[in-house]
């Protein structure tokens, strides 16, 4: 039977640092998926994965078993992704202000891993999707990614963003509105 995350965490806390390897191997892929959806590019996502496990290891004494280890880990990953996209945005806004017109480098990142069977239409949707997600504020993007892709509850999203319930709901709603505006012309809605 597979040892639960909670048992592994207890082992690591008791001094078996090598036990942390199991947690890394179990959760790396899902943290990468979250990070990629949050940041929109592979390099940043790798960076988030690395930093998330580093922070988790260092802060393991703060983990309380009320939430699952995976949820706690996602919270760290989402927070760090949020810091990263906020800093990028601030940096970009500053540069744009100083240099006049400049395209957001995130927008110029090509959609990766298209897959051989992807149709031109879905490719167009993917490109517009990437653009639409990049148009969201960091808070909207975080709330939307956590709700839409990760299925996190409003309570969990509140905790990650440090905002109230209504603000969390409103961030999701605003994100959907913006995505709708961009994507609706492409999607044949009844």
């Amino acid at each position: 039977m597979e040892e639960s995350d909670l048992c592994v965490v207890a082992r690591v806390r008791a001094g078996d640092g090598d036990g942390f390897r199991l947690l890394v191997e179990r959760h790396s892929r899902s943290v990468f998926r979250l990070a990629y959806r949050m940041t929109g590019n592979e390099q940043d996502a790798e960076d988030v994965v690395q930093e998330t496990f580093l922070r988790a290891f260092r802060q393991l004494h703060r983990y309380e078993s009320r939430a699952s280890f995976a949820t706690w880990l996602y919270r760290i990953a989402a927070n760090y992704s949020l810091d990263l996209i906020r800093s990028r945005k601030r940096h970009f806004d500053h540069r744009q202000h100083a240099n006049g017109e400049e395209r957001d480098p995130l927008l110029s990142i090509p959609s990766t891993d298209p897959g051989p069977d992807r149709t031109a239409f879905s490719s167009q949707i993917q490109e517009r999707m990437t653009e639409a997600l990049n148009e969201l504020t960091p808070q909207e993007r975080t709330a939307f990614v956590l709700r839409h892709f990760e299925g996190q509850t409003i309570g969990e999203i509140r905790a990650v963003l440090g905002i109230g319930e209504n603000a969390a709901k409103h961030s999701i709603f605003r994100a959907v509105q913006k995505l709708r505006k961009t994507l609706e012309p492409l999607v044949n809605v009844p």
Partner: protein
Amino acid sequence: MNHLNEEQLVLHYYGEPGDAPPVEAHLAECQSCRAAYQSLQCLLNTVDVTVPQRPEDYGAQVWQRLNLPLHRPQARFWLLPRNWAMAAAAAVLLVAAFLAGRWQRPASPPPQVAVTGRLRERVLLVALGDHLERSQMILVELANATPELGRGGGRLDISYERSAAEDLLEANRLYRQTAQRTGDAAAANILDDLERTLLEIAHSPSNVSQTQLADLRKQIEDQGILFKVRIFGSRVREREAPVSAANRNL
């Protein structure tokens, strides 16, 4: 029931509990709301992001790259003030040695002296890299501390971070002064910002209220200090690598 608004439809799509039964009942009866909901469903069902595949052994690769300091008995080792003090004292000695080396270095050093110089540089870079990493840890701990984690009526015990910041201050001052003397204005500015933040943390009470924690977090965030320290730390580590390689080739 009035027609459902867009926000209600979005929340219903995501299965938020609360007013689900009345919303469902309304959707069953009202054709226009049902059409609006179907349109939203159709759109949100297409929202997907193609995530690049990771190899089967991705977890093992991440583990290798992490290179965690497992020889330490516990993760909290770093947070013990006594160890921070020792690390800071060692860093101070290293900086002093480095400065002495710089001032005493002759115009055309013989090969052996050049080797010593490179070693000193490597030692300084390693010490500075560690200093930045420890500072980053403190900032991250505070940036990620949420009121939910606080005990005792929403207060959070930051005594570890506080004493660690105190210990880091002295070393930081020396690094900043070194950067200023050597004319590295960018590094001096980052270290100056870091010093102010460390000072703020060191002067905070051991038990902070939610408001005090929010103020600290705001200061960290407003200055973008975490990001700056992270980037600076990466640069130091990058510089460290060629120096280490040069030392190995000798």
